């Protein structure tokens, strides 16, 4: 038995080969919660240079726990960059694809850092933490390019851009009983009612003596929260959340389940669905690029021009059976077409739905909903159908 490393070649994909857990790269980094994961019996994986939990016991059990009860994730590898100063709003309107100057205090917004060619340097979530303070949360693997781009764009604005990633930990509690768990967590107080906190809104608060930002955001397709806290207090918060969550069925969940959860929810992952050479419009993120913005922003001209008419577009694929198409598997228009007209970017046997699902870039001619295509699964062409994203939507 030899795990097939070619199934997931992207650098920030979840690893699958037996060697990845034993290789000790000199550059590896550890979460402030590392010891808690070791104590909980986690298996680790390299993710953008970090040793992070891939699973604690079972990917599937962790996935199902998030869909039916709750899971707790360590996301401390993600990058936190603060933007502060009188020009913070105007600066972000220039530096990012969206309009951030007008979001409310403690509102969150999904946005993109584009380059001049309209390609995606990173996809991010931006929080307004004060009138003149914003928090930009970037992917772990894009910490450096995101910070460099944001820094370079600050030159003519009265703002300070600071990489706080080493000082900030991030814990996510996701699943239908998440709110009850946070409300039961000893030492955690928030400045308001979690019951009234809307999606993509946040509240300040404290845990013991540390400030905490509690946001109703996530990457799983379930209700849930993300908690930002200073590194020294993170382990105690993790323990308190787990203790409060135990009666509710909360389990620690690793990056393997996080990946299948976000895939079912149709959420793109940088390095798979998003890249520096891809346009937002190709990934279905045209709405994130605010061309109605009155002011110029990096990537605006290229975004107005848009991708070429024949550029591949991101679609969802579903198939019958159990054999899943995976990242980099080619997509064909027929069982015997000689040339591929698409490629899968993420794929798995959906734990919730029980059949294979995938996201793929395909030629525009294959992108219409209901189009029948074929995925080459290691030499066998398996039929699949273009379908609406997301694959899974929770009942509200």
């Amino acid at each position: 038995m030899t795990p097939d490393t070619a199934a997931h070649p992207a650098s920030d994909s979840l690893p699958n080969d037996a060697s990845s857990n034993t290789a000790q790269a000199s550059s590896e980094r550890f979460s402030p919660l590392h010891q808690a994961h070791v104590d909980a019996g986690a298996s680790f994986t390299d993710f953008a240079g970090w040793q992070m939990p891939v699973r604690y016991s079972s990917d599937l059990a962790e996935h199902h726990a998030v869909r039916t009860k709750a899971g707790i994730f360590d996301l401390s590898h993600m990058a936190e960059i603060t933007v502060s100063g009188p020009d913070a709003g105007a600066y972000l309107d220039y530096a990012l694809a969206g309009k951030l100057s007008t979001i409310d205090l403690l509102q969150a917004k999904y946005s993109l850092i584009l380059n001049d060619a309209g390609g995606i340097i990173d996809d991010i979530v931006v929080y307004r933490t004060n009138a003149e303070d914003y928090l930009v949360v970037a992917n772990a693997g894009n910490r450096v390019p995101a910070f460099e781009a944001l820094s370079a764009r600050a030159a003519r604005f009265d703002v300070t851009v600071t990489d706080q990633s080493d000082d900030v930990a991030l814990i996510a509690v996701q699943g239908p009983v998440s709110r009850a768990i946070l409300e039961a967590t000893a030492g955690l107080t928030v400045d308001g009612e979690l019951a009234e906190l809307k999606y993509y809104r946040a509240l300040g608060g404290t845990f013991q003596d540390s400030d905490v930002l509690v946001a109703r955001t996530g990457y799983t397709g379930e209700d849930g929260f993300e908690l930002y806290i200073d590194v020294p207090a993170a382990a105690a918060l993790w323990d308190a959340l787990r203790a409060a969550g135990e009666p509710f069925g909360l389990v620690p969940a690793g990056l393997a389940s996080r990946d299948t959860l976000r895939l079912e929810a149709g959420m793109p992952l940088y390095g798979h669905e998003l890249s520096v050479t891809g346009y937002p419009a190709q990934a279905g993120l045209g709405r994130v690029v605010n061309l109605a913005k009155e002011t110029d922003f990096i990537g605006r001209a290229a975004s107005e021009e848009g991708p070429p008419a024949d550029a591949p577009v991101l679609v969802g694929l579903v198939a019958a059976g159990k054999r899943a198409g995976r990242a980099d598997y080619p997509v064909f228009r027929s069982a015997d077409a000689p040339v591929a007209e698409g490629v899968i970017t993420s794929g798995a046997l959906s734990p919730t739905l029980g059949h294979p699902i995938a996201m793929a870039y395909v030629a525009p001619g294959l992108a219409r909903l209901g189009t029948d295509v074929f995925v080459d699964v290691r030499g066998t062409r398996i039929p699949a159908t273009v379908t609406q994203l997301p694959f899974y939507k929770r009942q509200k």
Partner: protein
Amino acid sequence: MADKTELQYTAEHEWVLVDGDTALVGITAYAADKLGDVVFVELPAVGSSVAAGTVVGEIESTKSVGELFAPVNGTVVETNDAVVDSPELVNSDPFGAGWLLKVSFTELPTLLSYSEYSALVGE
């Protein structure tokens, strides 16, 4: 569950239980753990000839795909239907109910002992 110390092993993380001229084959707990939850198993047809070192099946988890190699030259005499119906047996009982196939052979190649395999995986 077979006694792990009595089994022979391959460098591809498979175990072999020899009984006369048949070899019962499965993957090790180490391999099952690295794969994660197994969700699909494809095994060769009963009666098919297999050559040692060639791919004869696939083991898929939610996150990855593993190839199953034949550890010996021979003929497949039985496959585990239970594991095809319930792939999670590979995780829950890799050395027992999660066995994969039985091969009749005429000559047994040199395989790894328990201590040699343990050294290979660093356990």
